[in-house]
Protein backbone atom coordinates (compact mmCIF):
# COMPACT_ATOMS: atom_id res chain seq x y z
CA UNK A 1 0.00 0.00 0.00
CA UNK A 2 2.85 2.36 0.86
CA UNK A 3 5.51 2.55 -1.78
CA UNK A 4 8.68 4.56 -2.10
CA UNK A 5 10.20 4.88 -5.54
CA UNK A 6 13.72 6.13 -5.96
CA UNK A 7 13.49 8.52 -3.01
CA UNK A 8 16.42 10.85 -2.52
CA UNK A 9 17.21 13.60 -0.02
CA UNK A 10 19.80 16.34 -0.09
CA UNK A 11 20.43 18.53 2.93
CA UNK A 12 22.85 21.38 2.58
CA UNK A 13 25.89 19.90 0.86
CA UNK A 14 25.14 16.42 2.03
CA UNK A 15 23.31 13.75 0.07
CA UNK A 16 21.58 11.79 2.81
CA UNK A 17 20.23 9.00 0.67
CA UNK A 18 19.28 8.28 -2.92
CA UNK A 19 17.41 5.69 -4.90
CA UNK A 20 15.52 4.33 -1.92
CA UNK A 21 12.83 1.81 -2.86
CA UNK A 22 10.50 -0.22 -0.71
CA UNK A 23 6.89 -1.21 -0.51
CA UNK A 24 4.79 -2.13 2.49
CA UNK A 25 1.54 -4.04 2.71
CA UNK A 26 -1.00 -4.33 5.50
CA UNK A 27 0.41 -6.01 8.60
CA UNK A 28 3.99 -5.05 7.83
CA UNK A 29 6.37 -3.06 9.98
CA UNK A 30 9.28 -1.13 8.53
CA UNK A 31 12.13 -0.64 10.93
CA UNK A 32 14.40 2.17 9.81
CA UNK A 33 17.71 2.21 11.58
CA UNK A 34 21.12 3.74 11.26
CA UNK A 35 23.54 5.95 13.09
CA UNK A 36 22.77 9.51 14.22
CA UNK A 37 22.36 11.90 11.37
CA UNK A 38 21.89 9.26 8.72
CA UNK A 39 18.56 10.69 7.57
CA UNK A 40 15.93 8.63 9.37
CA UNK A 41 13.89 11.60 10.51
CA UNK A 42 14.17 13.14 7.06
CA UNK A 43 12.88 9.95 5.46
CA UNK A 44 9.94 9.72 7.85
CA UNK A 45 8.93 13.32 7.25
CA UNK A 46 9.14 12.68 3.55
CA UNK A 47 6.80 9.73 3.86
CA UNK A 48 4.31 12.05 5.61
CA UNK A 49 4.56 14.64 2.87
CA UNK A 50 6.12 17.25 5.16
CA UNK A 51 9.35 17.34 3.19
CA UNK A 52 9.36 17.36 -0.57
CA UNK A 53 11.62 14.63 -1.96
CA UNK A 54 14.55 15.95 -3.94
CA UNK A 55 13.93 13.01 -6.29
CA UNK A 56 11.54 10.09 -6.48
CA UNK A 57 8.08 9.87 -5.02
CA UNK A 58 5.93 8.32 -2.33
CA UNK A 59 2.80 6.41 -3.30
CA UNK A 60 -0.16 5.27 -1.26
CA UNK A 61 -2.49 2.71 -2.77
CA UNK A 62 -0.84 3.37 -6.10
CA UNK A 63 -1.33 7.14 -6.15
CA UNK A 64 1.31 9.79 -5.27
CA UNK A 65 0.59 11.29 -1.88
CA UNK A 66 0.96 14.79 -3.26
CA UNK A 67 -2.15 14.22 -5.35
CA UNK A 68 -4.04 12.39 -2.61
CA UNK A 69 -3.68 15.16 -0.05
CA UNK A 70 -6.33 14.94 2.63
CA UNK A 71 -7.31 11.42 1.64
CA UNK A 72 -3.85 10.23 2.52
CA UNK A 73 -3.64 12.27 5.66
CA UNK A 74 -6.90 10.79 6.93
CA UNK A 75 -5.23 7.39 7.11
CA UNK A 76 -1.93 8.67 8.49
CA UNK A 77 -0.74 9.14 12.04
CA UNK A 78 2.69 10.67 12.58
CA UNK A 79 4.48 11.16 15.88
CA UNK A 80 7.75 13.05 15.63
CA UNK A 81 10.60 14.00 17.92
CA UNK A 82 8.42 16.60 19.65
CA UNK A 83 5.38 15.57 21.61
CA UNK A 84 2.90 17.91 19.85
CA UNK A 85 0.90 18.66 22.98
CA UNK A 86 -0.40 21.99 24.25
CA UNK A 87 1.27 22.59 27.59
CA UNK A 88 -1.72 24.45 28.98
CA UNK A 89 -4.31 21.82 28.21
CA UNK A 90 -4.81 18.62 30.15
CA UNK A 91 -3.93 15.25 28.70
CA UNK A 92 -7.59 14.53 28.14
CA UNK A 93 -8.22 17.77 26.26
CA UNK A 94 -5.10 17.32 24.18
CA UNK A 95 -6.13 13.87 23.15
CA UNK A 96 -9.68 14.86 22.24
CA UNK A 97 -8.58 17.84 20.18
CA UNK A 98 -5.93 15.88 18.32
CA UNK A 99 -8.54 13.30 17.55
CA UNK A 100 -11.14 15.82 16.40
CA UNK A 101 -8.63 17.43 14.03
CA UNK A 102 -7.87 13.98 12.68
CA UNK A 103 -11.57 13.86 11.77
CA UNK A 104 -12.75 11.52 14.51
CA UNK A 105 -14.27 13.24 17.51
CA UNK A 106 -14.22 11.03 20.61
CA UNK A 107 -15.99 11.12 23.95
CA UNK A 108 -14.26 11.90 27.14
CA UNK A 109 -14.68 8.32 28.27
CA UNK A 110 -12.95 6.95 25.20
CA UNK A 111 -10.06 9.35 25.59
CA UNK A 112 -9.83 8.54 29.28
CA UNK A 113 -9.63 4.85 28.47
CA UNK A 114 -6.76 5.42 26.08
CA UNK A 115 -4.86 7.42 28.70
CA UNK A 116 -5.53 4.75 31.31
CA UNK A 117 -4.14 2.11 28.97
CA UNK A 118 -0.87 4.06 28.98
CA UNK A 119 -0.78 4.19 32.76
CA UNK A 120 -1.80 7.81 33.18
CA UNK A 121 -4.72 7.24 35.52
CA UNK A 122 -4.76 10.13 37.95
CA UNK A 123 -2.86 12.41 35.60
CA UNK A 124 -5.60 13.01 33.00
CA UNK A 125 -6.64 16.32 34.44
CA UNK A 126 -3.24 17.89 35.02
CA UNK A 127 -2.03 20.40 32.47
CA UNK A 128 0.61 18.68 30.38
CA UNK A 129 3.13 21.31 31.46
CA UNK A 130 3.66 19.74 34.88
CA UNK A 131 4.05 16.18 33.63
CA UNK A 132 7.45 14.56 33.49
CA UNK A 133 9.20 13.94 30.21
CA UNK A 134 8.08 10.34 30.04
CA UNK A 135 4.50 11.14 31.01
CA UNK A 136 4.29 13.66 28.17
CA UNK A 137 5.40 11.06 25.71
CA UNK A 138 2.81 8.70 27.08
CA UNK A 139 0.07 11.22 26.44
CA UNK A 140 1.29 11.58 22.86
CA UNK A 141 1.33 7.81 22.45
CA UNK A 142 -2.21 7.56 23.74
CA UNK A 143 -3.22 8.71 20.26
CA UNK A 144 -2.06 5.35 18.96
CA UNK A 145 -4.15 3.50 21.51
CA UNK A 146 -7.13 5.65 20.61
CA UNK A 147 -6.69 5.10 16.90
CA UNK A 148 -6.56 1.39 17.65
CA UNK A 149 -9.83 1.59 19.57
CA UNK A 150 -11.47 3.46 16.71
CA UNK A 151 -9.87 1.39 13.98
CA UNK A 152 -9.08 4.57 12.02
CA UNK A 153 -5.61 5.50 10.88
CA UNK A 154 -3.96 2.66 9.11
CA UNK A 155 -0.44 3.98 8.57
CA UNK A 156 1.57 4.89 11.66
CA UNK A 157 4.85 6.71 11.23
CA UNK A 158 6.74 6.90 14.51
CA UNK A 159 10.05 8.68 15.10
CA UNK A 160 11.82 7.19 18.13
CA UNK A 161 8.60 6.42 20.01
CA UNK A 162 10.44 4.63 22.82
CA UNK A 163 12.38 7.70 23.98
CA UNK A 164 12.04 8.58 27.65
CA UNK A 165 9.69 5.66 28.37
CA UNK A 166 10.21 3.37 31.32
CA UNK A 167 9.99 -0.41 30.95
CA UNK A 168 6.30 -0.64 31.70
CA UNK A 169 5.43 1.92 29.05
CA UNK A 170 7.67 0.21 26.50
CA UNK A 171 5.76 -2.99 27.11
CA UNK A 172 2.44 -1.24 26.54
CA UNK A 173 3.66 0.36 23.34
CA UNK A 174 4.94 -2.94 22.00
CA UNK A 175 1.55 -4.50 22.62
CA UNK A 176 -0.23 -1.62 20.88
CA UNK A 177 2.03 -1.93 17.85
CA UNK A 178 1.47 -5.66 17.68
CA UNK A 179 -2.29 -5.22 17.84
CA UNK A 180 -2.19 -2.63 15.07
CA UNK A 181 -0.16 -4.90 12.82
CA UNK A 182 -2.45 -7.82 13.50
CA UNK A 183 -5.37 -5.68 12.43
CA UNK A 184 -3.71 -5.13 9.08
CA UNK A 185 -2.12 -1.77 9.87
CA UNK A 186 1.27 -0.54 8.70
CA UNK A 187 3.99 0.85 10.97
CA UNK A 188 7.14 2.71 10.03
CA UNK A 189 9.42 3.41 12.96
CA UNK A 190 12.93 4.31 14.02
CA UNK A 191 14.55 3.66 17.34
CA UNK A 192 18.02 3.32 18.76
CA UNK A 193 16.87 1.14 21.64
CA UNK A 194 16.62 -2.59 21.45
CA UNK A 195 13.01 -3.59 21.70
CA UNK A 196 11.08 -6.67 20.72
CA UNK A 197 9.29 -6.05 17.43
CA UNK A 198 8.22 -9.52 16.54
CA UNK A 199 4.59 -9.43 15.51
CA UNK A 200 3.78 -9.24 11.81
CA UNK A 201 6.32 -9.07 9.02
CA UNK A 202 9.27 -6.87 9.87
CA UNK A 203 11.20 -5.23 7.08
CA UNK A 204 14.35 -3.25 7.69
CA UNK A 205 16.12 -0.38 6.07
CA UNK A 206 19.63 0.43 7.18
CA UNK A 207 20.46 4.04 6.54
CA UNK A 208 23.85 5.66 6.32
CA UNK A 209 27.35 4.31 6.03
Amino acid sequence: MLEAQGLGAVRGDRRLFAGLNFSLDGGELLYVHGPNGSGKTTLLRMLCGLVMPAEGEVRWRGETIRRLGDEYRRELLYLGHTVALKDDLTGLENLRIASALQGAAVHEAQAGEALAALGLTGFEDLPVRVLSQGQKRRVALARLQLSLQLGRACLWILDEPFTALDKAAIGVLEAVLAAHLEGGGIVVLTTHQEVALTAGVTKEIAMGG
Partner: protein
Amino acid sequence: MLAALRCMVMRDLVLAVRRVSDVLTTLFFFVIVVSLFPLGVGPEMEMLRTIAPGVVWVAAILASMLALGRLFGHDYGDGTLEQMLLAPQPLALLVLGKVLAHWLVTGLPLVLMAPLLGLQFGLDTVALEVLVISLLLGTPAISLIGAVGAALTLGVRGGGVLVSLLVLPLYIPVLIFGAGAVEAEAAGLGAGGHLSLLGAIAVLALCFAPLAAAAALRISLE
Protein backbone atom coordinates in the same frame (compact mmCIF):
# COMPACT_ATOMS: atom_id res chain seq x y z
CA MET B 1 -15.55 20.53 7.85
CA LEU B 2 -17.39 23.00 10.00
CA ALA B 3 -16.75 20.69 12.92
CA ALA B 4 -13.03 21.12 12.38
CA LEU B 5 -13.43 24.89 12.23
CA ARG B 6 -15.42 24.89 15.45
CA CYS B 7 -12.97 22.58 17.16
CA MET B 8 -10.11 24.89 16.21
CA VAL B 9 -11.87 28.01 17.44
CA MET B 10 -12.90 26.36 20.67
CA ARG B 11 -9.45 25.02 21.30
CA ASP B 12 -7.84 28.42 20.91
CA LEU B 13 -10.47 30.09 23.04
CA VAL B 14 -9.95 27.55 25.82
CA LEU B 15 -6.23 28.13 25.62
CA ALA B 16 -6.81 31.87 25.81
CA VAL B 17 -8.98 31.44 28.88
CA ARG B 18 -6.26 29.34 30.52
CA ARG B 19 -3.94 32.27 29.89
CA VAL B 20 -6.19 35.20 30.54
CA SER B 21 -3.13 37.37 31.02
CA ASP B 22 -2.47 37.07 27.29
CA VAL B 23 -5.79 38.63 26.46
CA LEU B 24 -5.44 41.36 28.99
CA THR B 25 -1.93 42.28 28.08
CA THR B 26 -2.75 43.05 24.46
CA LEU B 27 -5.48 45.31 25.70
CA PHE B 28 -3.25 47.00 28.25
CA PHE B 29 -0.57 47.48 25.69
CA PHE B 30 -3.09 49.30 23.54
CA VAL B 31 -4.17 51.48 26.45
CA ILE B 32 -0.62 52.25 27.47
CA VAL B 33 0.55 53.20 24.00
CA VAL B 34 -2.37 55.54 23.60
CA SER B 35 -1.70 57.04 27.00
CA LEU B 36 2.01 57.50 26.30
CA PHE B 37 1.27 59.98 23.58
CA PRO B 38 0.00 62.86 25.62
CA LEU B 39 3.11 62.35 27.76
CA GLY B 40 5.42 62.53 24.80
CA VAL B 41 3.61 65.26 22.92
CA GLY B 42 2.34 67.58 25.59
CA PRO B 43 -1.12 68.31 26.90
CA GLU B 44 -2.76 70.85 24.54
CA MET B 45 -6.32 69.57 24.09
CA GLU B 46 -6.84 70.97 20.61
CA MET B 47 -3.86 69.21 19.17
CA LEU B 48 -4.65 66.01 21.03
CA ARG B 49 -8.12 65.99 19.53
CA THR B 50 -6.67 66.31 16.05
CA ILE B 51 -4.20 63.51 16.43
CA ALA B 52 -6.55 61.23 18.42
CA PRO B 53 -7.89 59.02 15.59
CA GLY B 54 -4.41 58.54 14.21
CA VAL B 55 -2.99 57.66 17.60
CA VAL B 56 -5.75 55.19 18.43
CA TRP B 57 -5.41 53.51 15.08
CA VAL B 58 -1.64 53.29 15.22
CA ALA B 59 -1.86 51.86 18.73
CA ALA B 60 -4.44 49.31 17.63
CA ILE B 61 -2.22 48.21 14.78
CA LEU B 62 0.83 47.94 16.99
CA ALA B 63 -1.06 45.99 19.65
CA SER B 64 -2.51 43.47 17.23
CA MET B 65 0.81 43.16 15.52
CA LEU B 66 2.49 42.32 18.79
CA ALA B 67 -0.04 39.61 19.41
CA LEU B 68 0.72 38.03 16.04
CA GLY B 69 3.68 36.16 17.46
CA ARG B 70 1.27 34.04 19.44
CA LEU B 71 -0.92 33.18 16.49
CA PHE B 72 1.16 30.24 15.28
CA GLY B 73 4.25 30.55 17.45
CA HIS B 74 3.28 28.23 20.27
CA ASP B 75 1.73 25.67 17.98
CA TYR B 76 4.92 25.65 15.98
CA GLY B 77 7.09 25.29 19.03
CA ASP B 78 5.29 22.33 20.53
CA GLY B 79 4.75 20.48 17.27
CA THR B 80 0.95 20.75 17.15
CA LEU B 81 1.16 22.84 14.00
CA GLU B 82 2.86 19.97 12.21
CA GLN B 83 -0.05 17.80 13.26
CA MET B 84 -2.46 20.37 11.82
CA LEU B 85 -0.69 20.12 8.50
CA LEU B 86 -1.17 16.39 8.65
CA ALA B 87 -4.84 16.63 9.54
CA PRO B 88 -7.24 15.57 6.80
CA GLN B 89 -8.92 18.98 6.80
CA PRO B 90 -8.31 21.90 4.46
CA LEU B 91 -5.49 23.76 6.15
CA ALA B 92 -6.93 27.12 5.14
CA LEU B 93 -10.01 26.30 7.18
CA LEU B 94 -7.98 25.55 10.28
CA VAL B 95 -6.07 28.76 9.74
CA LEU B 96 -9.33 30.65 9.45
CA GLY B 97 -10.43 29.15 12.75
CA LYS B 98 -7.24 30.19 14.43
CA VAL B 99 -7.47 33.73 13.06
CA LEU B 100 -11.08 34.00 14.14
CA ALA B 101 -10.24 32.97 17.69
CA HIS B 102 -7.28 35.31 17.65
CA TRP B 103 -9.41 38.21 16.60
CA LEU B 104 -12.03 37.48 19.25
CA VAL B 105 -9.29 37.49 21.85
CA THR B 106 -7.13 40.36 20.73
CA GLY B 107 -9.04 42.44 18.18
CA LEU B 108 -12.49 42.67 19.65
CA PRO B 109 -11.38 43.95 23.07
CA LEU B 110 -9.55 46.80 21.34
CA VAL B 111 -12.68 47.78 19.48
CA LEU B 112 -14.64 47.83 22.71
CA MET B 113 -11.99 49.80 24.52
CA ALA B 114 -11.45 52.42 21.83
CA PRO B 115 -14.42 54.72 22.60
CA LEU B 116 -13.25 55.10 26.18
CA LEU B 117 -9.84 56.22 25.01
CA GLY B 118 -11.31 58.47 22.35
CA LEU B 119 -13.36 60.15 25.01
CA GLN B 120 -10.20 61.04 26.90
CA PHE B 121 -8.88 62.78 23.83
CA GLY B 122 -12.08 64.82 23.60
CA LEU B 123 -13.63 63.18 20.54
CA ASP B 124 -17.39 63.74 20.16
CA THR B 125 -20.06 61.05 19.85
CA VAL B 126 -20.21 60.94 16.07
CA ALA B 127 -16.47 60.68 15.78
CA LEU B 128 -16.45 57.92 18.39
CA GLU B 129 -19.08 56.02 16.45
CA VAL B 130 -17.07 56.21 13.25
CA LEU B 131 -13.95 55.20 15.15
CA VAL B 132 -15.63 52.06 16.46
CA ILE B 133 -17.05 51.09 13.08
CA SER B 134 -13.74 51.65 11.37
CA LEU B 135 -11.98 49.49 13.95
CA LEU B 136 -14.66 46.83 13.67
CA LEU B 137 -13.98 46.57 9.95
CA GLY B 138 -10.25 47.12 10.20
CA THR B 139 -9.12 44.81 12.98
CA PRO B 140 -10.27 41.58 11.29
CA ALA B 141 -8.38 42.65 8.19
CA ILE B 142 -5.34 43.28 10.36
CA SER B 143 -5.56 39.83 11.93
CA LEU B 144 -6.03 38.15 8.57
CA ILE B 145 -3.19 39.96 6.83
CA GLY B 146 -1.01 39.46 9.87
CA ALA B 147 -1.59 35.71 9.71
CA VAL B 148 0.24 35.58 6.38
CA GLY B 149 3.23 37.40 7.82
CA ALA B 150 3.22 35.28 10.96
CA ALA B 151 3.12 32.11 8.90
CA LEU B 152 5.97 33.24 6.69
CA THR B 153 8.29 34.05 9.57
CA LEU B 154 7.70 30.88 11.55
CA GLY B 155 10.85 29.27 12.76
CA VAL B 156 12.89 32.17 11.49
CA ARG B 157 14.96 33.49 14.36
CA GLY B 158 14.08 37.11 15.02
CA GLY B 159 10.76 36.33 13.39
CA GLY B 160 8.96 38.39 15.99
CA VAL B 161 10.45 41.56 14.65
CA LEU B 162 10.71 40.45 11.05
CA VAL B 163 6.97 39.92 11.00
CA SER B 164 6.42 43.62 11.71
CA LEU B 165 8.59 44.51 8.79
CA LEU B 166 6.61 42.25 6.51
CA VAL B 167 3.10 43.13 7.55
CA LEU B 168 3.31 46.81 8.42
CA PRO B 169 3.55 47.90 4.79
CA LEU B 170 0.42 45.89 4.11
CA TYR B 171 -1.35 47.50 7.04
CA ILE B 172 -0.87 50.99 5.70
CA PRO B 173 -3.98 51.11 3.52
CA VAL B 174 -6.04 49.90 6.47
CA LEU B 175 -4.53 52.61 8.62
CA ILE B 176 -5.05 55.33 6.04
CA PHE B 177 -8.69 54.49 5.44
CA GLY B 178 -9.37 53.77 9.10
CA ALA B 179 -7.95 56.93 10.57
CA GLY B 180 -9.05 58.80 7.47
CA ALA B 181 -12.67 57.85 8.08
CA VAL B 182 -12.72 59.57 11.45
CA GLU B 183 -10.92 62.62 10.12
CA ALA B 184 -13.23 62.87 7.11
CA GLU B 185 -16.21 62.72 9.44
CA ALA B 186 -14.70 65.46 11.59
CA ALA B 187 -14.05 67.55 8.48
CA GLY B 188 -17.71 67.15 7.52
CA LEU B 189 -16.95 65.07 4.42
CA GLY B 190 -18.72 61.95 5.60
CA ALA B 191 -16.97 58.69 6.41
CA GLY B 192 -18.94 56.51 3.99
CA GLY B 193 -16.33 56.26 1.25
CA HIS B 194 -13.51 55.39 3.60
CA LEU B 195 -15.58 52.85 5.45
CA SER B 196 -16.67 51.03 2.32
CA LEU B 197 -13.08 50.82 1.10
CA LEU B 198 -12.17 49.44 4.52
CA GLY B 199 -14.95 46.88 4.20
CA ALA B 200 -13.68 45.88 0.77
CA ILE B 201 -10.21 45.34 2.17
CA ALA B 202 -11.64 43.16 4.94
CA VAL B 203 -13.62 41.02 2.52
CA LEU B 204 -10.64 40.59 0.21
CA ALA B 205 -8.46 39.63 3.14
CA LEU B 206 -11.07 37.14 4.32
CA CYS B 207 -11.07 35.45 0.92
CA PHE B 208 -7.37 35.30 0.22
CA ALA B 209 -5.43 35.58 3.48
CA PRO B 210 -6.30 32.11 4.84
CA LEU B 211 -5.19 30.52 1.58
CA ALA B 212 -1.97 32.49 1.49
CA ALA B 213 -1.29 31.77 5.15
CA ALA B 214 -1.91 28.06 4.63
CA ALA B 215 0.53 28.04 1.72
CA ALA B 216 3.04 29.91 3.85
CA LEU B 217 2.69 27.37 6.65
CA ARG B 218 3.40 24.50 4.30
CA ILE B 219 6.51 26.29 3.12
CA SER B 220 7.67 27.17 6.62
CA LEU B 221 7.35 23.67 7.97
CA GLU B 222 9.14 21.97 5.10
